[in-house]
């Protein structure tokens, strides 16, 4: 399937800038060369003691001009290069985000291993260097090569050819040899290094286990052995780099000698003035500085391959198939009992895409736009700035000075969102999106009338779902009725189908059989409106690196400060926030490290209280908290969500006594269901489990 690369399209899009950069680079090199050339000419000419100083006036001006302009040109060239690259990075980021966004709900299960998202972000940073370190210097060298040969050709064709041959060693032969010689060592080293990286991470994370096993020496020895292998490879590479530098310098020497004999010969037969000998000889040194670094620049190319591969993989359509196959493989391995986790939630992109194409985009974005003005108002900025924003001017605060609010679409942008144009979705060969545009626009119109419901009646009717192909069903024949205000608890082992059930309710998956309806509409068709009906508090809600207020505001961008305070108060955050010196403007810091686990859940709770949906999904929100914090958090959650429908996935029975229904899932089925009292009465198994949570009755 066709796919766009991560390098070429950006060259095309920034061709003008690229040409400018290369042009500046060539001028820089030319200025440096001309400085030496004119200097050589100047002193030779002066040595002839011309009668009139005006005869050397031109070279004097030339020397000064070239001397100054080389520095200026180089400065401008570097700035232009970085500017272009930063522009490209900005585009790449948006593209990567837009590629990942549709599959947001399945990313976690798909890339459980490692922090793939962080890696991808770094990959983009890496690609900057392709341009800065390899593409630009390489292109400049090629242009200079052509220019030098052309210039020499005007003097002497045969000599121009000889020089062309000599320079080709630096420009073509050495880089190619370099690449050939080192590519394998580099590849080996890279693999060894990443293996070592894993090994060390593994060891540091399992440090306690190593220490208590009494086998630390074994590990240290094997680690040193691995390091020694890398060091050997590194030594080979470095030796080659030194040899290459030496060979390069010998080419320079050859150039000087060649130039010397040629200009001497030319002078001897009278076809050239002797004043040019020094000029031609001296110009060799600065010229060679353009060609010498090419080998090193080219040699770096293999380093970018991994980054490129990863990005291509993410954006390629092949991912769908891979995901299907993976899902199938995982699911096959899954069985009763403690099933392997990765099976649950392994995802189908086709389905996600199809559902997402339906549903109105226009409506949300229209609201966004009208909200934008209000949203653009930073929490405690003077009202005048807010006024300006409201009128649709650019955001009043300089972007750098303002804390970048995470979800604060500027008014101007809101307008373009209204037109629906601001959104460039990567349609990059997504089969699921084949029907898109027209259908989507049509349904957008239909969906434009979507009004946030105050009540939602969720019905699951004999719902079954499997992750593609002949995989075992993850959810089988589940029937659930959740009228507005009903509270149910869902209990089951990992792999029992809890997450799949939640995904079905959120419309992320389309059932193979049966139907999930919210107020009579299939959940999948609600598409982007789902967050207006259902809010989610999961185990580790992401808190963004911005202020507390902005984090809460994410629940509803148009919320006033009063509403934010109110939500925080409900979540019992008021005392904590009051104790912070900057109050609501306190930055959350990266992943909210400033706050404890319980406090972070409360911030997230305030956020979904602001989102104010009729249905709330709680996906093990208290796991990892100590019992007292857990009790207090759950109490707050239960109090603040009175009247809302609640779907609470939990691993303990504590607190489920108050739920309207408790559901035990196993192998995708509901094994036991009923109220606490009913279950206690009917199932010895339930009594036995309940005993674990309440082992010691106290009078």
């Amino acid at each position: 399937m066709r796919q766009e690369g991560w390098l070429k399209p950006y060259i095309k899009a920034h061709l003008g800038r690229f040409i400018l950069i290369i042009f500046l680079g060539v001028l820089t090199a030319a200025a440096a060369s001309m400085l030496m050339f004119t200097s050589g000419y100047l002193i030779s000419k002066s040595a002839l003691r011309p009668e009139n100083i005006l005869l050397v006036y031109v070279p004097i001006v030339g020397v000064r001009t070239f001397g100054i302009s080389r520095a200026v040109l180089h400065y401008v060239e570097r700035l232009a290069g970085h500017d272009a690259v930063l522009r490209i990075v900005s585009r790449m980021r948006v593209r990567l985000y837009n590629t990942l966004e549709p599959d947001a709900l399945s990313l976690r299960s798909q890339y459980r291993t490692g922090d793939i998202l962080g890696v991808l972000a770094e990959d983009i940073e890496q690609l900057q260097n392709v341009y800065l370190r390899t593409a630009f210097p390489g292109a400049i060298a090629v242009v200079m090569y052509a220019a030098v040969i052309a210039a020499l050709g005007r003097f002497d064709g045969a000599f121009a050819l000889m020089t062309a041959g000599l320079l080709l060693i630096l420009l073509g032969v050495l880089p190619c040899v370099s690449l050939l010689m080192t590519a394998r060592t580099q590849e080996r080293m890279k693999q060894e290094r990443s293996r070592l990286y894993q090994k060390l991470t593994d060891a540091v994370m399992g440090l306690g286990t190593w220490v208590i096993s009494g086998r630390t020496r074994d590990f240290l020895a094997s680690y040193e052995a691995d390091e020694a292998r890398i060091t050997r490879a590194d030594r080979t590479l470095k030796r080659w780099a030194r040899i290459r530098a030496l060979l390069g310098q010998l080419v320079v020497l050859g150039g000087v000698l060649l130039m010397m004999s040629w200009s001497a010969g030319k002078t001897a037969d009278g076809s050239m003035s002797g004043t040019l000998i020094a000029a031609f000889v001296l110009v060799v040194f600065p010229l060679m500085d353009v060609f010498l670094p090419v080998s090193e620049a080219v040699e770096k190319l293999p380093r970018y391959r991994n980054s490129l591969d990863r990005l291509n993989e993410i954006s390629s359509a092949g991912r769908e198939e891979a995901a299907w196959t993976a899902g199938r493989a995982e699911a096959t391995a899954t069985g009763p009992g403690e099933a392997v986790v990765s099976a649950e939630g392994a995802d189908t992109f086709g389905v996600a895409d199809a559902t997402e194409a339906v549903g109105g985009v226009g409506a949300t974005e229209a609201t966004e736009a009208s909200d934008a003005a209000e949203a653009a108002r930073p929490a405690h900025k003077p009202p005048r700035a807010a006024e300006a924003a409201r009128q649709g001017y650019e955001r009043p605060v300089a972007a750098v000075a303002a804390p970048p609010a995470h979800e604060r679409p500027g008014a101007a942008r809101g307008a373009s969102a209204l037109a629906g144009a601001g959104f460039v979705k990567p349609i990059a060969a997504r089969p699921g999106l084949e029907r898109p545009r027209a259908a989507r626009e049509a349904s957008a119109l239909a969906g434009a009338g979507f009004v946030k419901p105050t009540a939602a009646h969720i019905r699951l009717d004999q719902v079954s779902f499997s992750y593609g192909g002949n995989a075992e069903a993850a959810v089988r024949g589940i029937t659930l009725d959740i009228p507005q205000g009903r509270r149910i608890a869902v209990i089951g082992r990992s792999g029992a189908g809890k997450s799949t059930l939640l995904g079905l309710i959120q419309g992320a998956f389309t059932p193979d059989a049966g139907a999930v309806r919210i107020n009579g509409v299939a959940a999948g068709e609600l598409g982007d409106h789902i967050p207006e009906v259902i809010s989610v508090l999961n185990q580790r809600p992401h808190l963004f690196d911005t202020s507390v207020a902005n984090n809460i505001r994410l629940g509803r961008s148009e919320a006033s400060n009063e509403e934010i305070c109110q939500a925080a108060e409900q979540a019992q955050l008021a005392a904590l926030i009051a104790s912070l010196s900057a109050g609501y403007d306190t930055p959350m810091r990266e992943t909210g490290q400033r706050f404890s686990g319980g406090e972070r859940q409360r911030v997230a709770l305030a956020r979904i209280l602001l989102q104010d949906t009729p249905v709330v999904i709680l996906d093990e929100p208290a796991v990892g908290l100590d019992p007292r914090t857990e009790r207090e958090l759950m109490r707050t959650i239960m109090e603040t969500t009175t009247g809302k429908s609640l779907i609470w996935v939990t691993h303990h029975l504590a607190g489920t006594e108050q739920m309207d229904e408790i559901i035990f899932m196993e192998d995708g089925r509901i094994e036991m269901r009923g109220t606490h009292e009913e279950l206690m009465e009917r199932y010895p198994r339930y009594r036995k489990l309940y005993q674990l949570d309440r082992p010691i009755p106290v009078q």
Partner: protein
Amino acid sequence: MGRELLGLRGIRPVMAAMAGLTLIQTLSIILQAKWLAETVSALFAGEPLQEQYGTAVLFLCAFTVRQITVYFQQSIAAKFAELTGARMRSQLMNKLFELGPRYAGKEGTGNLVTLVLEGVTKFRTYIELLLPRMLAGGFTPVLILGFIYTLDTSSGIILTVTMPILIVFMILVGLAARKQTEGQLKTYKVLSNHFVDSLRGLETLKFLGRSRTHSQSIERVSGSYRTATMKTLRTAFLSSFALDFFTMLSVASVAVSLGLRLVNGNMVLLPALTVLILAPEYFLPVRMVGADFHATLDGKEAGEAMQAIINSHSSEELNEKGVLEPGYSWSDRSSLALSGLSVTHEEGAGPSLEGVDLRLTAGMKIGIIGESGAGKSTLIDVLGGFLRPSAGTVEVDGRMMPSLSETVWRNQTMYIPQQPYIFSSTLEDNVKFYSPGASLDEVKQAVEAAGLGPVVERLPGGYKEMIGGGGRRLSGGQEQRVALARAFLSDRPVILLDEPTAHLDIETEYELKAMMLELFEGKTVVLATHRLHWMPDMDVIVVMDHGRVEEVGTHEELLMKQGAYYGLVKEQEEGAA
């Protein structure tokens, strides 16, 4: 710069070699210029090329000698850097294992791994770059300048004056740039983190219905980031601009002044040409230092960070001579006593354990219960030898020991934390981690005993299936079963458990509890948890609060007493209501 390099082991001969090579190099630079100028000026004077072969060959030799010295300088520096880097790494690794998991948890796994892998590389690069430059930076320009003075005083003066101006400007611009960068550091960090932050929070954004519009936010913030970066770069690049500018200007001035004096007849071509060739060489070392400034700074910082860890005080010494004899083993008559034990993690902070007295005899099962922060984990860490008590005594079979961090003691214990670490390796290797010599049959027995049998049957690779970070991820319950299998296989007499089941779903917890009780048969067990259901199965219950032992007794005794234990039970009961 580079003063700390002089403290490195084995640096003296290296420096001596560098000094010798630098001297040869400088001489060959001067001779190369001299002979090149001679050849060119002779050719200019109209002498035939053939007569200049001699000088040209001399030039060739000088040029080659210079490049060869560069080669050797680099190779010596690389070798030394490799040795020093390897030594530093091995010190660092040893230290990390001494400092143990608590330290690793505090510093962050990612940071430590990056420091070991990237830090050593950076430090090596730093040595490689700096060693040849340190002497060349001082030697070479002075010698070249001296030679230029012998040829032409005014050129010498121009060059002498430029150098300090150049350096002062570089420093001034550098300081200005740093000030500007520092002023914006916070903004920078936020801006550059924004993207990663957005990707990580993608799921949350989707839940909130904000993921679509957020794309614009990314674009805008990236734009701001570019503006901010370019603003800083404009200043930052000024530093190398100053370097370039003054070098080029200086060379141009020398050329023009030479030209003018040649026209006046105060000078002849040969010395003029020599000076012109030497002028760029005079600036070369300074320019090199400028070019590698960032690499050297990075390396220097990495070196300092590593040295700080190596010098830090560790609570355990890997090579400490043990109190227990090498063949010691915990028997069914053994006992362990802690008395007056205290642990203080950080200066100034309150103690995590205070005056703990505890007696443990073989075969006893002790349950430690209390709120989080009561000191349960700290006590387990002391018993496992991860922590050295700050006060109090430890006595094993009547022998006083400063701590339990001896390998001999560790070999008696099995530690099962809340989330046992699964290594990125095969299932078999993971199970036999504590007993690498075990046969496959023994592994199979242990796996069956831990209830992992059905799981293994479903794995395509069976016992050879890769699990852990690089392979198949296991659920929390399965991880705990792997830990159990390890314990069954290694059969160590003392088992320490830290909150082994609290995070599991209730059914898995129920099954695992049954397995664990089986494992505990005939073993000495210390189990820290806040799950009360374990307590009736324990021989002795220790209730902890704020680092102190509140109560000790059996389940029945403590319930009767209606003290702290009773309070905990009561509190959990209230949670249900």
